[in-house]
C-alpha cells in the first residue's frame, strides 16, 4: 500500500509538476488536483505548490484562497488532512488563516534565487518526522514575496509552542522576522515554508543534494503506518 498525495494546480502554479515528481521519487503516488474542482479525489494529503497563482497581482495567494478546491482543503485541513504549502502554497495557507502571519515583499525588494541553509526546528510534524530536530538542510529558495511577518504576540506564541518549523541559517535572505522560514499549525498537520524541498530530491539537478526528500518520505511513512 502506498499513499496518494494530491498536488493542486492553480492557474499560474509553476512547481506542480516538480512536486509530483518529488512525491513519486519518495515512493508515494502523486495525484493532480485542479483549482476549479472541489473534489480531492480521496487523497491522503495535499501539497499547495509554488508559483504565482492568478499572477499574484493583488497579493500573493490572495485570490487562490477563494478557489473552489480551497473550500474543501480548508475544511479537511481543520479535520486533520495533512497539507504542505511550499512558497506560493505557504502564502495561500496564511491567506486562508490555516497558518498565522503574512508574507511581505523581500526587504531588498528583489527576487532571490539561491541555495539556502535551513535548520529543522520541529521534527514532529506530519511533513518533518524523517528529520531530526536541529538538523541542517540545504534546499533552494526562490521568491520575491518571502518576508514572513506576524505581530509579536503571535511570534512569541509560535516560539513557545514549538511551531517554528524551519529557520534560515547563515543569512536571512528576505528579512523574515526571527529568521522564520516555515511554520506549522498546532496539530502539526499543516506546514508551510518558503524554500523548495521539491527541488532538492535528486543528486543530478537542483542543488545536487537530496535534503528535500525528507518532506515526502515523512508524510509517506506517516500515512502508510497510520
Amino acid at each position: 500500500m502506498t499513499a496518494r498525495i494530491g498536488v493542486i494546480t492553480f492557474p499560474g502554479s509553476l512547481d506542480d509538476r516538480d512536486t509530483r515528481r518529488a512525491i513519486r521519487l519518495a515512493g508515494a503516488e502523486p495525484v493532480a488536483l485542479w483549482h476549479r474542482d472541489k473534489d480531492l479525489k480521496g487523497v491522503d494529503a495535499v501539497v499547495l505548490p509554488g508559483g504565482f497563482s492568478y499572477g499574484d497581482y493583488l497579493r500573493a495567494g490572495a485570490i487562490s484562497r477563494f478557489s473552489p478546491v480551497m473550500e474543501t482543503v480548508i475544511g479537511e485541513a481543520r479535520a486533520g488532512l495533512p497539507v504542505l504549502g511550499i512558497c506560493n502554497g505557504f502564502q495561500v495557507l496564511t491567506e486562508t488563516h490555516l497558518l498565522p502571519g503574512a508574507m511581505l515583499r523581500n526587504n531588498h525588494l528583489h527576487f532571490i534565487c539561491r541555495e539556502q541553509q535551513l535548520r529543522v526546528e520541529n521534527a514532529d510534524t506530519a511533513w518533518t518526522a524523517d528529520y531530526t530536530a536541529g538538523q541542517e538542510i540545504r534546499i533552494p529558495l526562490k521568491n520575491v514575496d518571502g518576508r514572513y511577518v506576524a505581530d509579536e504576540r503571535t511570534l512569541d506564541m509560535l516560539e513557545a509552542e514549538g511551531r517554528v518549523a524551519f529557520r534560515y541559517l547563515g543569512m536571512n535572505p528576505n528579512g523574515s522576522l526571527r529568521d522564520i522560514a516555515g511554520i506549522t499549525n498546532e496539530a502539526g498537520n499543516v506546514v508551510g515554508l518558503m524554500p523548495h524541498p521539491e527541488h532538492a530530491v535528486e543528486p543530478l539537478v537542483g542543488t545536487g543534494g537530496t535534503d528535500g526528500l525528507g518532506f515526502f518520505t515523512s508524510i509517506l511513512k506517516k500515512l502508510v503506518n497510520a
Partner: protein
Amino acid sequence: MTLDTTKHAAGTPDADQPWAELGLKQDEYERIRDILGRRPTGAELAMYSVMWSEHCSYKSSKVHLKQFGEKAPASDAMLVGIGENAGVVDVGQGYAVTFKVESHNHPSYIEPYQGAATGVGGIVRDILAMGARPVAVMDPLRFGAADHPDTKRVLPGVVAGIGGYGNCLGLPNIGGEVVFDPCYQGNPLVNALCVGVMKHEDIHLAKASGAGNKVILYGARTGGDGIGGVSVLASETFDSTGPAKRPAVQVGDPFQEKLLIECTLEIFNEDLVAGIQDLGGAGLSCATSELASAGSGGMRVELDTVPLRDSSLSPEEILMSESQERMCAIVEPGKVDRFLEICEKWDVIATVIGEVTEGDRLEIFWHGEQIVDVPPRTVAHEGPVYHRPYERPSWQDALQADGADKLARPGGGEELREQVLALVASPNQASKSWVTDQYDRFVQGNTVLAQPEDSGMIRIDEESNLGVAVATDGNGRYAKLDPYTGAQLALAESYRNVAATGAKPLAVTDCLNFGSPEDPAVMWQFAEACRGLADACLELGTPVTGGNVSLYNQTGETAIHPTPVVGVLGVIDDVTRRTPMAFAEEGQLIYLLGDTADELGGSAWSQVVHGHLGGLPPKLDLEREKLLAEILIAGSRDGMIDAAHDLSDGGLVQAVTESCLGGGKGARLVVPDGLSPFVFLFSESASRAIVAVPRSEEVRFNDMCGARGMPATRIGVVDGDAVEVQGEFSIPLAELRAAHDATIPALLA
C-alpha cells in the same frame, strides 16, 4: 470619419496618405500602389508599413543572410530550418529541440522593465508556436559603462523585467551574458533565447491551409500598446527631439502567457491545430499575412470580432497593435468546439475571427465592409530588398595598426598580481550572481548546469538522461577590430562552451546587433560578420537554424560595436556525465589544452589595464576548434576529466580563478617553458580550455591527446587555498573572491 474601404480607396486615388509617418519610403509606397492597382486603404497601408519595416522584412540584411542557407553544412540533425518561428533540431530518441535568440534592444532602453519582460514573452511564444514545451531561457545582455548613471537605470530594470516575466512563467534561466562597454550607452542590447522540447511528431508550422478551416485568435485582448513598435522603434535611430515613444513599448502579463503555454500544449496534445503562429512584432498584420502567405489558399478575417481592451481602437490600430500574449491558430471546423473548450478551461479568451478561403487573397472586413484585399505574399514574404552600399571604413586600418603589443606590460610578480586582481574585479570579468540570483534556475526540476557554468544544461528525459546544452557568446571588441573573425570567434567560443560541458554541438542561432544599415561602414561590418559566421558554421558543421537581426543600434553618428551574439545548442546522451567548471578535488592535475600565442588585441587585459582597443583579435583555426571539442567530449564521456573551463576573455587566469572559486579549491600553477608569465596568464588565444584530470587518468588522457594531435600541457595542480603562480605571486582565494564578488553589487546597490 468615413471608413476607408477598398471601394473608397479605388474611388479616391489622390487622397493624402501618411506613408512617411509610418516609416515607408516614397518608392515603397509607389510599389504598394503598383501591387494593388490603386492606393492602399488605411488598413492596408498600416499592414504594409509594419511588415515592410526593417524589423519584419529584413530588407537590408536579407541579401547577406542568404549565405546561412547557401553555405549551410549538410546536417542530419536539422528538421526545420530558417524561415519558421524557430529552427528545430533532432536530438535523438524521438526528441526534437527548438531554440532561437531574438533582440528586444530598443524597447528595453526606453522602458527597461517592460522592454526586457516582453522580449522574454515574445521568444517564448515563438518556441511554443513550433509545438514545443519551453524548457529554459537565457539572456545575453550588453549595457553602457558599468559606472555610468544611466546603466543604473537600465540594468536593474532589464534584470527585474527578465526575472519578473521568466520567473512567473516557470522557465529556468540557465545562462547568458552581462557585458559592459561605453559603446552600448544609449543602445543597450537585450537579447533573449528560449529552448523548447517536443517529440518529432509534434512539430507545428505557421501556415494556413484547407479552405473552410477556422482562424482562431486566442490569448489576451488587443489593446493600444506597442502600436508601430517594429516600424517606429526597431527600425529607426533615436532622435532626442522627437515625441515620447513610450506608448510604442508593449506591456507584458506573464500570468496570461503562462496560461497560454499550458492551454496551447493541451491543444497540441489533442492534435487540434492545422497551423499556428504567435503574435509578436506587427501583431495581427504579421500573423494573418504570414499564415496566409505560407498556406495554400487565402484568408478572410472579420476584424470587428477581435476582442478589445479599448473599444475606441480603429481597424488600423487593431492590425498594428503589438499587445502581448496572443496566438493565432488554424483549426478544422470539427475541432473548433474542443479547442474553445480547452481555452475556457484555462480562462483564455478565444474567438473565431475568420477562415481560410479558396482564393489567394487576404481579405479583412470591418462590420461587413472590406478594408483589406491584398495578395498575402506581397505583405509577408515579398517585401522590399535593399542592396545597401557598404564599404570598409576608412578608420579600420588605423585601428588594426594600433596593436596591443605597444602597451606597457607588467614588470614583475607584484605587478602581475595587481593586474590579475584588477582583471577579475573588472565589471566584465566580475561575478554576475547579483544578476543571475534574480532568476529562477531550479524550476521544472531538470537544470543540470546553470550560470556561471560554460553552458546551461537541461535534462530532457528522466529515464534515459538525454539532455541538451546551450551557450551564447559574442565579443563586440573583437568584431570591431575584425568583423569577419569576430563573428567566427563568437561562434567558436559558444561551440567550445557547449563542448566543455560534455555536449556535442549541433546547431546555431544568432542575434546580429549592429548600427544603422544606412551607414556603409556599418553595412560592411554586417556583411563581413555574416560572411565570417556562415563560413565558420560550414566548417564546424553546425547550421544556423534561425535568429534575428537588430539594426539601428546607434545614437546619432555613433554605432555600437558590431555585436553578433551566437547561441550554440548541443546534445549529451547522458547528463550524469556532464563536466562542470569547478575544481572540486585536491590533487587533480590541471592541463591546458591548445596553443598559447602572444595575442592581446581586443583583450580584457588591454581594456581593464589600459582602456585600449586596437590591433587584431586572436587568430582562429577552426580545425583545431573542432579537435578541442572532440577531446572535451571524449574526456567527459570516458571519465578522464572532472572539470573543464573554456578560455576566452580574460585568458587563463580568469578561467583558473572561476574554476577555483567555483569549487573552493586553490591551484598551484607553473609557467610552461617558452611562455612569459604575462602571456601565459592574459593571452586570449582561441581554441583553448583548462581541464582537471584525476591522477589515475593522466596517462590515458595524455595518450588520447597525443594520438589526436591536441597540444596538452600540464600547468599545475588543484591544491591549497590560493591561486599561486610559481615564482611570481600568490593570491589567497578569499582575496580573489572578495575582488570578484564585490564589484557588481557595489555598482548597482
